[in-house]
């Protein structure tokens, strides 16, 4: 038992001789929870996850004996947790609209019974290790929750419960440990276990990421793909569309589990997700999206220290589902708020700031965090992945600031959002020149096998066109469009067609919001076909002005929102008819030529 010596904002100095770094503490009459971040002899420095107003020197404090951990088991999906995994729905029901302090509600419901189906091959006497599957719980209609031996345990299975309904605390088995300092000890197995959030969960080995994450967003999938198990960042000034893009990914991507971490952002954005997710159907399984989604929320008005913890809570939950052999996507909005929380604590600890107040370890912390993404061979020999997508909120939209620049070196896919595009309401405002993807090779293989062998070439051609048009636009802005040759004008026009008919994609248009890979490729091929046909004509002497006025140029810009992904047959009919639109002119100019 210890006591409070001093309270300074979220930091509390304690007399707590026996503690270790990272230990959870419960402090004061209110029972506020926090963690030890510094020690000096008999005193410890703790940061609390809740507002410290009202605490007094002299009030008692004690260590809880474990680091910040999360509960992992059935009951996670569809839930919303705060930054230290308190279940917000249950907290709301228990203590009302405002976040009361010191509430202790268990993360997972204790009274709910789950139907546990033991793995048929498991027999008493078998030797089991961490990660081995004990059985399953059908948590939601679309997600089969695998119950695993907690990592690091190794021993003999003494007993496994028969199929039946169990609460998460009831024993579903017993195991005698054979290794380590607890050798010989009998361990009770339950539907859930705990894991410390700052320690990555173990796996057998890293695997190559192979399949692209399909998000249904054309500029992402077709131009700057991300792989399942990859790392991506979305930097952009406020209002550029970071949150909408992450919400679009959370809605439409072909992952099996989506973890949405709202880190220091708006409360209403989480409400938005909570309201639309149950309404929408997963395009890949047809089930309500909420069944595969879980939310972690530390909004901007909630205590900063828990904000720092929230991303670790999120990634640990993601790893847990990965270990079950699932493909998990975690979106974090925004990693900048996490970095700022880090900065705030570092400042209070009196650590030396290096750039813009950030401590020297900012870069290594960011890298270590993103390192927890990846595709792995799990402890039980399956394959699972965590794809990590972080929004970055650079002050003043300046990408050279520390968080953006460090992140840029860590990730492989960079979706840079542009204020100019957002101002003109060109969404998603992903800048086609600033963005990059280091996964083109693997993605090309997948597209070639599954959609069209020409994907890589078509993508490259479209990007070249866009780059060329940028140059041409500079000339136009100096001397006017009349200075361009017909070929140049047509190039400019075709780039415009690609921007408006392909890249621009409205999240709020029911049809346009999601595009299957087939639809994406069909549109890309269509825009290029128009470009080629027109270029042939221009080379024959047709003035670009005439081509630009073809009704096709307007019609093609509307195709994306006229045909759903299920209805691309009709789209393909239109595309097949493109040459006929040019036929008459082609005859005319072939004759004169």
């Amino acid at each position: 038992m210890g006591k409070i010596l001093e309270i300074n904002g979220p930091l509390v100095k304690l007399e707590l001789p026996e503690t270790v770094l990272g230990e959870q503490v419960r402090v004061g009459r209110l029972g506020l929870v926090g963690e030890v971040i510094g020690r000096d002899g008999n005193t410890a420095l703790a940061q609390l996850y809740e507002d410290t107003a009202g605490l007094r020197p002299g009030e008692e404090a004690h260590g809880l004996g474990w680091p910040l951990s999360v509960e992992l088991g059935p009951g996670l999906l569809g839930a919303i947790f705060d930054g230290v995994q308190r279940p917000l729905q249950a907290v709301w029901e228990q203590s009302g609209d405002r976040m009361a302090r010191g509430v202790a509600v268990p993360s997972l419901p204790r009274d709910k019974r789950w139907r546990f189906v033991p793995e048929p091959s498991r027999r008493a006497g078998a030797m089991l290790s961490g990660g081995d599957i004990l059985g399953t719980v059908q948590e939601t209609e679309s997600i089969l929750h695998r119950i695993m031996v907690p990592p690091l345990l190794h021993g003999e299975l003494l007993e496994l419960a028969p199929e039946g309904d169990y609460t998460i605390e009831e024993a579903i088995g017993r195991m005698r440990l054979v290794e380590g300092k607890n050798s010989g000890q009998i361990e009770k197995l339950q539907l859930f276990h705990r894991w410390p959030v700052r320690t990555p969960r173990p796996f057998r080995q890293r695997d190559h990421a192979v399949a692209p994450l399909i998000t249904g967003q054309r500029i992402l999938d077709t131009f700057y793909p991300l792989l399942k198990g990859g790392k991506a960042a979305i930097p952009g000034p406020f209002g550029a569309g970071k949150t909408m893009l992450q919400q679009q990914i959370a809605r439409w991507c072909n992952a099996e589990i989506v973890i949405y971490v709202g880190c220091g952002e708006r409360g209403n954005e989480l409400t938005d997700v909570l309201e639309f997710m149950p309404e929408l159907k997963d395009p890949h399984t047809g089930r309500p999206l909420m069944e595969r989604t879980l939310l972690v929320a530390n909004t901007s008005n909630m205590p900063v220290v828990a904000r720092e913890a929230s991303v670790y809570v999120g990634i640990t939950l993601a790893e847990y589902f990965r270990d079950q052999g699932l493909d998990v996507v975690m979106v974090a909005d925004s990693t900048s708020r996490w970095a700022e929380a880090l900065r705030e604590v570092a400042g209070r600890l009196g650590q030396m700031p290096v750039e813009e107040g950030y401590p020297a370890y900012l870069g290594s912390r960011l890298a270590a965090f993103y390192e927890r993404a990846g595709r792995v061979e799990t402890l039980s020999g399956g394959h699972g992945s965590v794809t990590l997508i972080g929004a970055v909120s650079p002050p003043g939209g300046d990408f050279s600031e520390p968080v953006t620049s460090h992140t840029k070196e860590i990730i492989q896919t960079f979706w840079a959002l542009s204020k100019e595009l957002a101002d003109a309401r060109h969404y998603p405002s992903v800048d086609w020149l600033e963005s990059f993807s280091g996964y083109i090779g693997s993605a090309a293989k997948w597209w070639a096998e599954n959609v069209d062998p020409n994907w890589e070439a078509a993508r490259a051609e479209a990007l070249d066109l866009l780059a060329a048009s940028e140059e041409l636009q500079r000339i136009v802005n100096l001397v006017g469009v009349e200075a361009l040759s017909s070929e140049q004008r047509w190039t400019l026009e075709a780039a415009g067609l690609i921007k408006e008919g392909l890249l621009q994609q409205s999240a709020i248009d029911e049809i346009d919001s999601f595009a299957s890979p087939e639809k994406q490729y069909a549109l890309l091929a269509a825009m290029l076909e128009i470009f080629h046909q027109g270029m042939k004509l221009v080379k024959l002497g047709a003035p670009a002005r005439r081509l630009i006025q073809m009704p096709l140029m307007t019609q093609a810009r509307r195709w994306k929102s006229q045909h759903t992904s299920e209805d691309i047959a009709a789209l393909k009919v239109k595309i097949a008819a493109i040459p006929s639109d040019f036929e008459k002119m082609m005859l005319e100019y072939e004759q004169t030529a």
Partner: protein
Amino acid sequence: MKNIEFRTATSAQGGLIVMGGVPGVAAGSRVQLRDHAGRLRSGLVIRAADDAVLVEVFEGTDELDLERTWVRFLDEPFKLPVSRDILGRIFNGAGLPRDGRPPIISADRRDVNGEPLNPAARAYPREFIQTGISAIDGMNSLTRGQKLPIFSGGGLPHNRVAAQIVRQAKLLGEEASEFVVVFAAFGASHADARFFEESFEESGVLNKVVMFLNLADEPVIERLLTPRAALTAAEYLAFDLDYHVLVVMTDMTAYAEALREVAVLRGDVPARKGYPGYLYSDLAEIYERAGRIKNRRGSITMIPVLSMPSDDITHPIPDLTGYITEGQIVLGRELANQNVYPPVTVLPSLSRLMKDGVGKNFTREDHPHVASQLFASYAKALEVRGLAAIIGAEELSDADRRYLEFANAFERKFIGQGEDEDRSVYETLNLAWDLLSMLPGDALIRVSEEELAKYHKGVASI
């Protein structure tokens, strides 16, 4: 403890005073100081330890004689007494009457810091508010429960715009406004405060307004309290008494500067431009108090006014605000110089909640598309205008010349309107179509073909 006066100050400097040997003081507790002249000052415990307690003094520590300073620890945070009687009253930044009338007596006293709303308790704002201003309703609409600041600059008519919104804001189909108003001014001039008072008086809503005033020549540190006191009143009106509350706060820049002043005194590590790293979280504590709550009738809609230092939107105050609020209405000098009122610069303006509050079931089916089209066409028109400035308007193509004319008409007729002109959203949308009809139909791909057929009055192509 409340009744004991301690005379153990060991040092005082720049608004902070250290008290020695007062054990068991609660963090965040309110403090009352009595100086040698018998003058009372108030403060807040910002660091508590048994051997030293650090107190922030709102009225500053000037002329304090440590030997003759008596300090009482009131053992509770700053609280505001609330009751129905606050309507029609004027308070100072700390919630004391400044209208010469008696103080509010109520057993219900609330911590001005509030408590964060559980995200699971929020209800998403979806009800369109018609402000009667086309640039807002048509392109950056406001919904009930939204926080939508006005980004402005010195000499721009942000006060007039805010007052016009207060006068005209109502739900679609409502005859008159249902709103009560909480008005908070911090660091504002007497003239600004008087302008609002007169405006409320003229429109006869004074008895539906609560004012919290901390003017430019009043204690700086009290500014940190003013928005919190005002929002405590707003929360009470909205979530206890079921009112729809419109909160107007001016000027957030004065607030942030006060925060910086205090941070420097405390020795906090600065992040950008001397502002402390926690400016974001601190502003969020204020802005996030807007909103709606499930199963409650009332709402808090917030319109903070913020003057951008040197008209720079990337300055930390507008920047961090934009990262928290649900959009921003940006006023610009260029339009103001051309006598366009309200001088709303639409491209950097944004309403993040518009997507969920306009269109088929809310205003009119074509609304989202029309708004998107106006943005796209106007952005293109500005490019053409830039080009015209270089090569001369005569050199423009026919198509480009139309864009130039569109830009001019859009600024004068759509953005520009009278200070007393209260346009219905339908008038706004029809006006938008009049302007879009200046452009050929096939240049308008953000609206649907059906909408073009129904509303577009111009040529299909050129």
